[in-house]
């Protein structure tokens, strides 16, 4: 489904990604973790072409992301992305946040888009908030709407960029519950997160990054039981202690 091969990216002298390679099969859930500034977010933004990269190759569902002439908009319509800061469109009602891309990008009719949107809001437990503006919702609710907005386009895979980092602790679980449900339904997911409980529950593999490199990649149980590198051990001892 997703293949990242030897990707490099730098801002001037600073190397933000170096020799990154990872494969994600259909239906797999991959958790990407690592200290802040390690390049996790940059890596998943390269996957849907939001960040350009200099060398290497990324192929998503048969489409080569970095090649000139690739229709990135068409690709992104099939790859859902959820952001740390939700990024709902504040000038539109919740329902319109879910329908606009269906109508403008996929060319669905308004009625069809609305039906789909309401069904998805139902799924994330927010149907009664359809006519509110995002600013009237809590952070956890906004992030659930953002997930529903991505799902409305029937994506072949989903990217999550620290989806719970901006949330108050009591709201984290409502968002994780939605994500666990998605994973159990067989969605292909790449999740940048520090929520190790979530990783344990649904991830098939964990990718650990540090200083722009993928330092370790292992099946979830193996990663938590016996991390191979010192840096992964240190990281785990910090995030698991509380």
């Amino acid at each position, binding site marked *: 489904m997703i293949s990242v091969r030897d990707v490099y990216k730098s801002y001037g002298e600073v190397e933000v990604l170096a020799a990154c390679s990872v494969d994600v099969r259909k239906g797999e859930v991959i958790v990407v973790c690592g200290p802040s500034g390690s390049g996790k977010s940059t890596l998943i933004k390269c996957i849907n072409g939001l960040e350009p990269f200099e060398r290497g190759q990324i192929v998503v569902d048969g489409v080569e992301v970095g090649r000139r002439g690739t229709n990135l908009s068409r690709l992104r319509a099939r790859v859902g992305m959820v952001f740390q800061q939700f990024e709902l469109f504040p*000038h539109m009602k919740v329902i319109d946040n879910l329908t*606009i891309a269906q109508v403008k990008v996929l060319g669905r009719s308004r009625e069809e888009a609305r039906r789909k949107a309401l069904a998805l809001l139902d799924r994330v437990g927010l149907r009664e908030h359809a006519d509110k503006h995002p600013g009237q919702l809590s952070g956890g609710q906004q992030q659930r709407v953002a997930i529903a907005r991505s799902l409305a386009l029937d994506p072949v895979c989903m990217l999550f960029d620290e989806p719970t980092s901006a949330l108050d602790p009591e709201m984290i679980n409502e968002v994780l519950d939605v994500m666990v449900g998605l994973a159990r339904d067989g969605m292909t997911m790449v999740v940048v997160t520090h929520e190790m409980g979530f990783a344990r529950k649904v991830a098939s593999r964990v990718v650990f990054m540090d200083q722009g490199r993928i330092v370790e990649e292992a099946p979830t149980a193996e990663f938590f039981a016996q991390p191979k590198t010192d840096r992964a051990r240190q990281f785990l001892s910090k995030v698991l202690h509380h």
Partner: protein
Amino acid sequence: MYDFDWSSIPGALPFLWQGMKVSLGITAVAVAAGIAWGTVLAVMRLSSARAVSLFAAGYVGLFRSVPLVMVLLWFFLIVPSLLRDVLRLSHATDLRLASAMVAFALFEAAYYSEIIRAGIQSVSKGQRAAALALGMTPLQAMWHVVLPQAFRNMLPLLLTQAIILFQDTSLVYVSALADFFGAAYKVGDRDGRLVEMLLFAGAVYFVLCSAASWAVRLLRRRVLA
């Protein structure tokens, strides 16, 4: 001591009202066209294509470095004869109003584009990223997501610029077009009561613009709230 005589004002009111309609008409057209063309310029200016961005920067730089009166005069001298040739109009057709509207629109677009550019930059980058991530093209992201938020943020500034523009329309007197100021001048000149007429015209501008500024302040408070 100067002997004020206001008696020529009541009879001149219908003529002055005709002039006011010209002033408001030029303002309305210039604001609408200036914002439309200014938006295009602002988007061009922010484009990653160098040639496109340079054109917009050059346009804005040119119009901001030239006095408005001079732009108006160019247009009065050039545009009417040009339009007559292109549209094969007779020499009797009065094109002064049309050329004034075109001149103001092109000139104001340069100022509007700077306001709009700042407005676009005030919208967080994440909003554009989210729109792109949903498969929108860069232009769709601009139109559906960034510009609506940018306009909401900059509405007070756009309206303030419109008030300045309304005052600037008085410069069309260089073409002897009877806008409000021109009409007042003509009446004052005819009746030998120039001082009174200009004081009266100034008072009208003052009242209208102060009221409009006050309304903008109210609006700003509501937008920020």
